[in-house]
């Protein structure tokens, strides 16, 4: 025991005040469980609020305004070149996240959840120690713990020529990129996943020359190619270079920049950029918190293994969010947070969701929910897919951005909707209908019969479903004809 250590006893301690953690804590308190919320950061909200979803969307909004203004010249609206004040933009972004963090603090206060700031470490399956900066350490004895410690950007040390290069302020991860110190003249984005492309979009709009290096042969690995294509086409017109099937061999800080050694077909061997953003994935925060002192099991990728009730193999500890597995998305964590709190309150709750939507907030946006064609193929599952191009959507035309398409993936036997994917402006907002449809077990007809407001982009969901039904009917007619002969 440390001298001056305080001991506090509580029903539930939630480790990590990100979207999963605070959702779990608030729900638990609502269900009458005495709860403490511990977070290593001074303000609650986690990666989502401070280093992920929210700040990136604030900056992407700025990028959208710039690009929309530029595009308006197509219909006779000519704006002058925008004047960017980086400091003001940063201040606005921070004000947004601060307000939201205050909101969480307020909710916890009124909900009766105590927030403790400090680094936590498990002593065993029923107590942990929190080192509170500037204060004496605290020991919390708990009946249960919900682990919601999140994830952090993956670091690949072997890329750096030396220790010094690893510390270089010119080489940043997504957190550094979102801090928006300044807009570099040239930026290399290592990794063509959603984080790299979203940040590339921001920095491109703010005036940087953006180059993307992706190891596989396409952007957004895993996403259906037909959805990626319009984005890839658009980005190749915006970005300076997109190098596919290309590896970064090393990074070295040189005068005025970072020298990058590349390996790929028709790719220069050495290039220099003012700044480099590494966005090659994220890893779970399951280390350095004393989980070895508990019965929690961790898989090869570092994820804590959980069941549908979010229970780990330690009966006192549950886990939610990024630390508990893929996909590492805030909305998955929030739903799991509800489940974990309800399970602890003795309710029969389970994370049995059929669709976890995914959104890439680029221009245009890509969003999908349920099964993808790629997944169906990998599983050997026979599905039907019907598309509706946004070039035929009245609303898309009036936005002067008719790039996009909506795709409905269905069971050809039952016409049940299994997945929906879309690319186009605001796809991220439209995908919610797909999630509800999949969760409800909707069939194509449900989406066709339900009236969609006109003129909106949401009509494309109805149109794609209608296209699917027409296809099924045509096939049936053909089969009838064949049988007739």
């Amino acid at each position: 025991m440390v001298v001056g250590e305080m001991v506090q006893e509580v029903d539930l301690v939630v480790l990590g005040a990100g979207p999963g953690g605070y959702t779990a804590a608030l729900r638990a308190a609502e269900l009458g469980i005495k709860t403490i919320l511990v977070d290593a950061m001074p303000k609650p909200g986690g990666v989502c609020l401070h280093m992920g979803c929210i700040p990136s969307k604030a900056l992407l909004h700025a990028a959208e305004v710039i690009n929309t203004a530029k595009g308006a010249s197509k219909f006779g609206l000519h704006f002058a070149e925008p004047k960017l004040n980086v400091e003001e933009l940063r201040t606005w972004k921070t004000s947004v996240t601060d307000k939201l963090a205050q909101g969480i603090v307020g909710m916890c206060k009124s909900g009766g959840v105590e927030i403790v700031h400090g680094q936590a470490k498990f002593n065993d399956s029923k107590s942990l120690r929190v080192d509170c900066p500037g204060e004496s350490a605290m020991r919390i004895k708990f009946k249960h713990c919900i682990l919601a410690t999140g994830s952090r950007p993956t670091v690949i040390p072997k890329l750096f020529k030396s220790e010094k290069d690893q510390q270089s302020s010119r080489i940043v991860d997504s957190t550094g990129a979102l801090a928006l110190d300044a807009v570099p003249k040239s930026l290399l984005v290592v990794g063509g996943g959603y984080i790299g492309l979203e940040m590339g979009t921001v920095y491109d709009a703010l005036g940087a020359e953006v180059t993307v290096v992706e190891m596989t042969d396409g952007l957004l690995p895993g996403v259906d190619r037909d959805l990626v294509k319009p984005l890839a086409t658009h980005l190749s017109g915006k970005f300076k270079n997109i190098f596919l099937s290309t590896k970064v061999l090393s990074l070295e800080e040189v005068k005025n920049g970072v020298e990058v050694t590349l390996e790929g077909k028709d790719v220069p061997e050495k290039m220099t950029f003012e700044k480099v953003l590494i966005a090659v994935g994220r890893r779970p925060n399951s280390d350095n918190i004393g989980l070895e002192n508990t019965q929690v099991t961790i898989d090869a990728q570092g994820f804590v293994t959980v069941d549908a009730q979010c229970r780990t193999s330690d009966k006192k500890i549950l886990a939610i969010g990024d630390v508990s597995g893929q996909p590492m998305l805030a909305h998955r964590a929030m739903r799991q947070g509800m489940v974990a709190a309800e399970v602890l309150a003795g309710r029969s709750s389970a994370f049995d969701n059929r669709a976890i939507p995914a959104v890439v907030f680029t221009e245009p946006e890509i969003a999908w929910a349920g099964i993808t064609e790629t997944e169906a193929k990998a599983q050997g599952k026979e599905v039907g897919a019907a598309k509706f191009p946004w070039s035929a959507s009245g609303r898309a035309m009036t936005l002067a951005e008719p790039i996009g398409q909506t795709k409905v993936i269905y069971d050809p036997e039952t016409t049940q909707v299994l997945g929906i994917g879309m690319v186009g402006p605001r796809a991220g907002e439209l995908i919610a209908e797909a999630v509800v449809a999949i969760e409800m077990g909707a069939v194509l007809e449900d989406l066709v019969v339900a009236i969609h407001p006109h003129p909106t982009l949401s009509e494309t969901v109805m149109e794609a479903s209608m296209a699917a039904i027409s296809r099924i009917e045509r096939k049936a007619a053909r089969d009838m004809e064949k049988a007739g002969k």
Partner: protein
Amino acid sequence: MSVEFKLPDLGEGIHEAEVIAVKVKEGETVKEDQPILEVETDKAVVEIPCPVAGVVEKVNVQAGQTVKTGQVMMSFITDGAKAPAKEEAKAEAKAEQKQVVGAGVSSSPQARSSGGTTIGNGKVPAAPAVRRLARELGIDLTQVPGSGPAGRVLNEDVRSYAAGKLEGHFQSGHQTSTAQSSTSSTSTAQTSSAPAKATGVPPCSLKDKYGDTNGERKPLDLGGGGGLPAADLPDFTKYGAVERVPLKSIRRKIAENMTISWSRIPHVTHFDEADVTSFEPLRVKHDPKVNEQGGRLTLTVLTLKAVVSGLKKFPQFNASLDEKNGEIVFKHYFNIGIAVATERGLIVPVIKNVDQKSIIELARELKDIAEKTRSGKIELDRLQGGTFTITNIGAIGGTSMSPMINYPECAILGMARAADKPVVRQGKIEIGTIMPLALSFDHRIADGAEAAYFVRHIIERLEDPFTLLLEA
């Protein structure tokens, strides 16, 4: 290491059970397979053996409590771990390394960390709220027929499934679990015709017989076949004090099955008498040999053989009427149910493939199932799959009866007491042993003349067992 014991999956359609007795205490050392609990489902009383050897760590249930499949009933400390009582954190942490046992039920976390976008609950289309309802009711959604488009399971589907209202569920899940006999509360199983040792039904209180009076009350589940709405009763309290006891477990199942049998099957009962005078000397002669093999040579054993012979000749009595498909289902197997009166109510264990077993084998099995059924230890799979039922009230008395068919079988044969009576043989009055028989049958499948032939066929074999040999 600590091991949790959950109520295992007890078989088709059984989701809960009532704890009748807890046979171990916390801290007690137990052996593997030692009986630890007695539970009563709506089919039978089942003794649950201990899954491991060790020390009972915690008992979470008590007698009278209703437990659901998958509920943790007890935990044990097995080798290598100490009781956590006064140990420090580390020992306890070790003890908490839970391992879950229990057939078909597991709550251990599955590695799902790299899960895709679709997970959980198979592929049954159902809205999230419906899935939650199913979880709360402990229902496996894959078992619920969906009435929505593309087989979507709706809220009503789950509720009606839970209430057991789906006919298909009833037919497949509960057939032959209990049988019907108009004298169910007083009939005993097999007895020999000779020394009729009527063991009186021991007196017991309402609570002993029907269990806790605090249980849940719900209307009878008549599988949609009852037709009539549940009747309102007059206010009995106007005339004196009453006690209301919930209808539970076996009693409830009997009530439901009787109502269904009586309201669905047009019953006809055919009466006849068998002169079994020649059986007693045969019994006295051969019973010691059968005893050596662990059985008793009784009229019921002989009747089993005679009935199967009859069923082979008159297959309509080994059939079921499929109302849905307009077919008669003839069964090419001969599984005979034997009505057994127990303290908790009538139960019908089944002797399978009677045609393939010798008299000695049947005698042994009959004794075994009767004893096991009375003591509540009968295995669940021996309560299913019957094609015809025999009920014998001979040990108690009575000159005849009109037994009720064990739905969805076609017929039931009632045996009354074989008693010495004056009989006329070749114009002379002699003393003979006469056993009254009563066959109730489904008149939709069989007719009165056929029933008369069928019973005569049985009687010929009871009166002259040698006939059975001629057929064998």
